[in-house]
């Protein structure tokens, strides 16, 4: 890996851009197969009820209907690491929109008509929508049969006979002594709302079960191996009998990680005699039943010294997971320990509660809790700075983790890019100069871990013409992974960028990979690809040495050729070494790479301790400048400055694209987005007319700053980038609002109404 880099650090044309501008990129909903049926789902109109009876007879009589299924046909449950969710409701429904039955028919009209004719007799149960209520003893239990579900007891602790499926505990140092030592104590409660992922492509899947017993899913699935695994366990099948193929994905953001639209489609495909079934979700279904970024309440109490040093913190975090676990237990763990923020705090006590409610299921969202936690801890940090009359940048600089410091869980992270991102952001914001009149501004810092343990693998095969096929299960969903993985393979193999073809995301072809999530792909899959390319390169050198009759150590590999170092007229091309065609003297070249970060450790579920719980961290600093109209409460964003530690910038434009998109999501969710439910648990705004997402007219200029603090284990030093840009923006906006007009908003989104209420220009909200 020494020597000048040819491909890394540049921004070549994205490998899939041409297909996309031509309109030729195939998404799941574009797929059509011979003898394909169309599916529709009947859903629960009630938030909580037992199912007395399901009458499918009228649906079965509709012309063109080929299969109708309900819960009793598929008595399986999924979700890792807590298998609580049925494919179709069994005996009980737990949220409005839960799939109860499904229909496959010759055309979509017939499927929808039949779905509308399914008659379900319900007996309504009391619904519980507020997680604080749901936690109380005596609250109606969503899952009385909880103890019968399989769960991974090493990972989380439930509270028995309650709706709390996970209680995460972290105890570090001596909190009481820390508070006793403190000069000042600050307290605050911060609430992040529920919002939708907002991917423009609604979920879609085609499922086929061949009579020989092989199932294939063509699905908008971020994490094909993760989904295949979960499905295989549910069905009791070996994973290899489930093939997940992911075409292009029209935005994921976590909404398409793990089983989402697949279970009802699989339920149907098991009953259609081998005919494929296509299920395309409506926007309303996406809003009401395909996952949500759940609401979170964070209570913080922090003891500080007069000089600004943080000495103690308690945090209580309540995670609303909705009706089923999905990622809840791990989100509760990773999110809750992140409530520390990127700071050195010697004494801490954190309690995170993940709570069932009768609502759409919370799924992963880009940042996995760090948006919500950073809204809390960075709002809180400005309140502390204000209380101590300290400069907000100075107090952060003083407390930020640096190399050698210990995190909340007892980890000593490497290559910490917090101070460098803060310095760069403050400089770009001209923090040391007075702000423009009428403006408010703020700077916040965040840190986000990545999932561990977390394996990836890749094969690289040389083609007849000397080009390389890279087999990789990282899924392209807009983040640019195909281009970056191509760059890494080309660099490490010594090939030209244009000679590398990425073959992505088909579990029958591309080898195992945990998931496309958690900003993990550049680091984990990147390392696997570098190893596979290195392996291929070794084979290339062996063969070239034979062909050129020159010892290996005299050879250089570059630009898809092997050169004799001291005589560049003597060389051979990769094509001469390929060994693909019949009669070739050489055997085929196949490189193999497998990677799992070394020495990552599990958590102690009693203390929250974990000496290395992540292979790397994302370090970010976000600056915002805005103004507020005191008469209307309207916020106008003037600029966002977004600084991130990439470790090593593999592709500058792709990184900037991630930053711009992530920061825009931060702005949109801080100001506008809110999934609103009525008292009966029904979503009131399940469409883009009533649910406001930022348009081209709402997003201010976004300045990206890329800082490189190389990670010793990252591919060429790289860390991840995807999730950092969404974090911190909401707190920066809240802090800048206070800087501008002197009022603090602690519950998201920050709407004009809330600002006017805080200013006393509107009466307080009635609960």
């Amino acid at each position, binding site marked *: 890996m020494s020597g000048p880099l040819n491909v890394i650090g540049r*921004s070549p*044309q*994205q490998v*899939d*851009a*041409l*297909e*996309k*501008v*031509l*309109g*030729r*990129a*195939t*998404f799941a*909903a*574009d797929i059509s197969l011979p003898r394909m049926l169309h599916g529709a789902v009947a859903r629960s109109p009630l938030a909580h009820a037992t199912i007395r009876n399901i009458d499918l007879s009228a649906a079965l009589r509709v012309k063109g209907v080929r299969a109708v299924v309900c819960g009793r046909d598929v008595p399986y449950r999924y979700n890792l690491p807590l298998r609580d969710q049925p494919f179709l409701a069994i005996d009980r429904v737990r949220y409005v929109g839960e799939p109860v039955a499904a229909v496959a028919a010759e055309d979509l009209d017939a499927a929808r*008509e039949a779905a*509308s004719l399914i008659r379900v007799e319900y007996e309504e149960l009391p619904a519980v929508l507020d997680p604080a209520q749901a936690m109380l003893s005596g609250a109606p239990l969503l899952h009385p049969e909880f103890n019968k579900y399989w769960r991974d007891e090493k990972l989380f602790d439930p509270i028995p006979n309650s709706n709390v499926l996970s209680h995460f505990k972290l105890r570090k140092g001596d909190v009481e002594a820390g508070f006793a030592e403190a000069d000042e104590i600050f307290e605050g409660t911060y609430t992040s709302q529920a919002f939708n*992922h*907002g*991917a*423009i*492509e*609604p979920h879609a899947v085609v499922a086929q079960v061949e009579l020989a017993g092989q199932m294939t899913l063509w699905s908008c699935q971020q994490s094909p191996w993760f989904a295949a695994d979960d499905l295989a366990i549910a069905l009791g099948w070996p994973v290899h009998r489930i093939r997940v193929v992911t075409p*292009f*994905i*029209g*935005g*994921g*953001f976590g909404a398409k990680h793990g089983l989402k639209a697949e279970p009802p489609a699989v339920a149907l495909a098991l009953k259609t005699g081998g005919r494929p079934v296509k299920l395309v979700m*409506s*926007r309303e279904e996406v809003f009401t039943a395909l996952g949500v970024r759940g609401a979170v309440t964070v209570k913080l109490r922090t003891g500080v010294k007069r000089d600004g040093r943080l000495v103690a913190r308690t945090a209580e975090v309540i995670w609303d997971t909705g009706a089923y676990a999905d990622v809840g237990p791990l989100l509760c763990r990773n999110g809750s320990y992140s409530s520390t923020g990127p700071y050195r705090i010697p004494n801490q006590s954190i309690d995170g509660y993940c709570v069932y409610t009768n609502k759409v299921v919370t799924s992963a969202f880009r940042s996995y809790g760090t948006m919500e936690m950073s809204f809390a801890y960075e709002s809180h940090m400005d309140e502390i700075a204000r209380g101590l009359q300290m400069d907000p940048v100075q107090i952060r600089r003083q407390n930020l983790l640096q190399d050698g410091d210990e995190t909340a869980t007892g980890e000593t992270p490497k290559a910490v890019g917090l101070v460098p991102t803060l310095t760069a952001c403050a400089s770009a914001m001209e923090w040391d100069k007075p702000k423009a009149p009428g403006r408010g501004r703020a700077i916040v810092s965040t840190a986000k871990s990545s999932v561990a343990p977390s394996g990836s693998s890749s094969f690289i095969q040389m083609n007849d013409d000397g080009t390389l096929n890279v087999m990789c299960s990282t899924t392209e*969903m*807009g*983040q*640019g992974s195909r281009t970056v993985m191509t760059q890494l393979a080309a660099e490490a193999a010594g090939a030209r960028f244009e000679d590398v073809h990425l073959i992505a995301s088909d579990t029958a072809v591309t080898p195992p990979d945990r998931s496309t999530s958690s900003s993990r792909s550049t680091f984990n899959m990147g390392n696997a690809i570098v190893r596979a390319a290195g392996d291929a390169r070794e084979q290339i050198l062996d063969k070239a040495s034979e062909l050129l009759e020159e010892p290996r150590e005299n050879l250089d590999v570059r630009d898809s050729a092997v050169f004799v170092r001291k005589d560049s007229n003597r060389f051979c091309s990769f094509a001469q070494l390929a060994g693909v065609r019949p009669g070739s003297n050489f055997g085929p070249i196949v490189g193999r790479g497998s990677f799992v970060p070394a020495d990552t450790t599990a958590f102690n579920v009693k203390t929250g301790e974990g000496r290395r719980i992540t292979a790397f961290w994302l370090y970010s600093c976000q600056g915002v400048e805005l103004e507020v109209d005191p008469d209307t409460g309207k916020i106008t964003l003037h600029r966002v400055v977004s600084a991130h530690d990439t470790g090593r910038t593999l592709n500058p*434009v*792709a990184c*900037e*694209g991630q930053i*711009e*998109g*992530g*920061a*825009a*999501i931060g702005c949109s969710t801080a100001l506008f987005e809110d999934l609103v439910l009525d008292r009966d648990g029904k979503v009131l705004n399940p*469409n*883009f*007319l009533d649910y406001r*997402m930022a*348009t*081209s*007219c709402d*997003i201010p*200029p*976004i300045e990206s700053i890329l800082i490189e603090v190389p990670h010793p284990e990252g591919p060429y030093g790289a860390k991840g980038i995807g999730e950092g840009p969404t974090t911190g923006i909401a707190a920066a906006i809240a802090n800048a609002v206070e800087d501008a007009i002197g009022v603090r908003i602690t519950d998201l989104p920050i709407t004009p109404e809330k600002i006017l209420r805080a200013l006393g220009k509107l009466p307080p909200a009635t609960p």
Partner: protein
Amino acid sequence: MDARTQKPARQVVELEVDGETIEATIAPHRLLVDVLRDACGRTSVKEGCESASCGACTVLVDDVPRLACITPAADVIGSKIRTAESLRSSDGRLHALQEAFIHHHAVQCGFCTPGMLMAGLALLEENSRPTEQEVRDAIAGNLCRCTGYVRIVRAILAAAQTLGARPERRLPEMAS
């Protein structure tokens, strides 16, 4: 119930799509988005919301941007329909908008891209030298969750410049 179970009669109609005359058998209530995708093979026309609120299905009908998800196919019989698949010229050259979207990395997941291209095309046919605000206004009905719109706006402005500088490129590519 009666209205729903009674299947309306299907009719054979001719649609002019991307300069091609396509015969399709459709029920009168069929929406243009479904007919373009299912009967005309134009899967570049994306369906994101079914409620005229995301812009992914934007096509031009007689040069005016229309949302195919709320347009009955029967309403556009006799009109010229253009999709993003018409943008490339017959000799394979990309349209300046397509080139700019690639060059400026205005594409991430690509799902909103065809609709964005058509909204951009409608703007540039109407206004060959738009300001940034005019570009932002023109695509305000097209949602994108990946890019923050930064590079899409930049690409459309760049395409306007390219087209202004090379007017001869413009006409043949826009004839449908």
